[in-house]
């Protein structure tokens, strides 16, 4: 039986709920009442769902291509593996967005991330990438900072540099 992403997701839910139940048992009776009332039946349902999914998978005939197996010619990448590769790349782009918010703050990230995403990921012409990036930055600055006076996070690196060069 093949252990797919669907199964990994089911197992992760069961583990998470299991940790929840075990942690909740340790609280005092008032604090654990509601968590236990909800988590125990949810955990049982999650286990049943996981088992039923495993059994269904065992019965299902899966085409070789969707499992990421090579076809008889053996050379072409399959649709399944191509899709997983795409997903992984997009996941990395999403993570990099949130890391850049943390390190560089929203203002620099807005420009940099939009530009890199359009130029490197989507391979747009640099002029289009630059125009959209500048437009996004202008919108952020005019609406959020100038108009609504929102105090946006400036970024770990920027704060460190500011402290190093200006002392605050």
């Amino acid at each position: 039986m093949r252990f797919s992403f669907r199964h990994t997701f089911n197992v992760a839910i069961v583990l998470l709920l299991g940790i929840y139940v075990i942690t909740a048992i340790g609280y005092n009776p008032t604090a654990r009442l509601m968590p236990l009332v909800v988590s125990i039946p949810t955990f049982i349902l999650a286990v049943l769902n996981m088992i039923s999914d495993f059994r269904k998978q065992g019965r299902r005939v899966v085409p070789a291509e969707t499992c990421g197996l090579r076809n008889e010619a053996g050379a072409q990448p399959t649709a399944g593996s191509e899709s997983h590769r795409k997903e992984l790349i997009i996941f990395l782009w999403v993570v990099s967005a949130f890391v850049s918010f943390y390190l560089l703050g929203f203002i620099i990230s807005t420009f940099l991330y939009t530009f890199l995403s359009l130029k490197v990921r989507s391979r747009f012409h640099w002029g289009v990438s630059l125009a959209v990036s500048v437009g996004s930055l202008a919108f952020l600055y005019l609406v959020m900072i100038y108009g609504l006076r929102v105090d946006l996070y400036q970024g770990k690196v920027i704060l460190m540099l500011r402290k190093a060069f200006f002392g605050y």
Partner: protein
Amino acid sequence: MIEAALLGLAKVFAWPALGFMLLGVLIGIVVGILPGVGGLFSLAVLIPFTFKMDPSSAFALLLGAHAPSYTGGAITTILLNTPGDPPNAATLFDGFPMTKKGQAGRALGAALSSSAVGGVLGAAFLILLIPVMRPLVLLFAPPEFFMMAMVGIAFIAVISGKSLTKGLIAGGFGLLLGLVGLDMSTSVERFTFGTLFLWDGIHLAPVTLGLFAVAEMIEVAVQGGSISETMVASEIGGVLRGIKDTFTHKWLVFRCAVLGNIIGIIPGIGGDTACFFAYGHARQTEKNREQFGTGVVEGVIAPQSAINAKEGGALVPTIAFGIPGSAGMAILLGAFYIQGLKPGPDMLNNNLWLIFSMAWTVALANILAAAVCMAFANRMARVALLPGDYLFPVVLILCGIGAYCTRNALGDLVVTAIFGFVGYAMKKFQWPRPVVIIGLVLAKVAEKNLHLSLRLYHETFFLRPITIALILIVIVTLVLTLRGRRRERRDLPA
């Protein structure tokens, strides 16, 4: 009374109050569209500007900005799967699928017009209910609040989609997320794993942004293309059809507005739940209930009319008792004191015209906001045709800013990112996502009121008349849902 109503109307149309209301409406729409910075933000930002204003101008500006924020929020909800305000989350269950089906214009038309009608009805209820307010509010105590939360939780079964088991697990997961943080009764840290950020619990906005907006952008980026591939020229102009839909479903709009208003009136339930109750109600009562979640217009009309009507309801206890019916009303209460007004019987007797003026402002602001948004709705609907490559970075940045602005905490960025991946996995493996949000919204309401009920009324708290009625509603909801599911399974071809 009629004299006070006319004086209130005259004050709304007098200069400079009218100008302030128009300014407020524009601010409210912009703030509503931006994820994370909702109506509360606009109220908090605008209060300092009202220090030197007369009461009618001050409330024209504040209510003008607050009332239409959910109307603006519907735009990004429908077009980008990114709720402008957390309560708009219920609109995306069917709003975004409509956009994917190429009916963005129709969805926008229906959302904007039902918002306007809901807002006007909310204002009308405010005026009608003030004389009978006191006995109505006193009927509700912690046992009733707890059972109201149970009614909401029962809706999890209604909107679980194809798999009830997955729906119940996802709903339970949402409830458990809502229990993270300091326990309100005992101050015990629960599921914080030593993280200070989690003491305050997991907020609705970053979870919603992650589960829906980030997850959708991941999907669009993986699959390529645009949000809607099927939109044709004639359907872009579907705004008028959407408006017509609102009036075709006038009774649904009315029922959901009443529901939203009642939830708004009762302090303690939390206005965010109104839209979910309305959605659940529509899904139970409409003929095409099996199609809900696939992009039906009733699924857009119901939550939008409820959330705009609830603000009129929330004003009732604020004015009548000085008890805020929602978080927005708590901030507005500050404005009352700044203006030297004391909510309660004194205000009902001496400043009745101002209450009418507020009701007129809420009604007019909702109509104006819908009109302004409709003027641009056709152009806005074209967003759905933009290549996903353009939207991907822009929406991710909006989500990041929206999550951070919720409470200026970097931890919310992490929550959004995690739920982005969880949401994508849930969508891919056909787990229902809306029920997570319902669980998250209702968990604390249910727990707090359960403990209060047990302390105040002991184990017999469920024997009160309204509580019994609510228990019956829960039972009927579950029985009807299970029967409907069995019938659906039986009707499926073998």
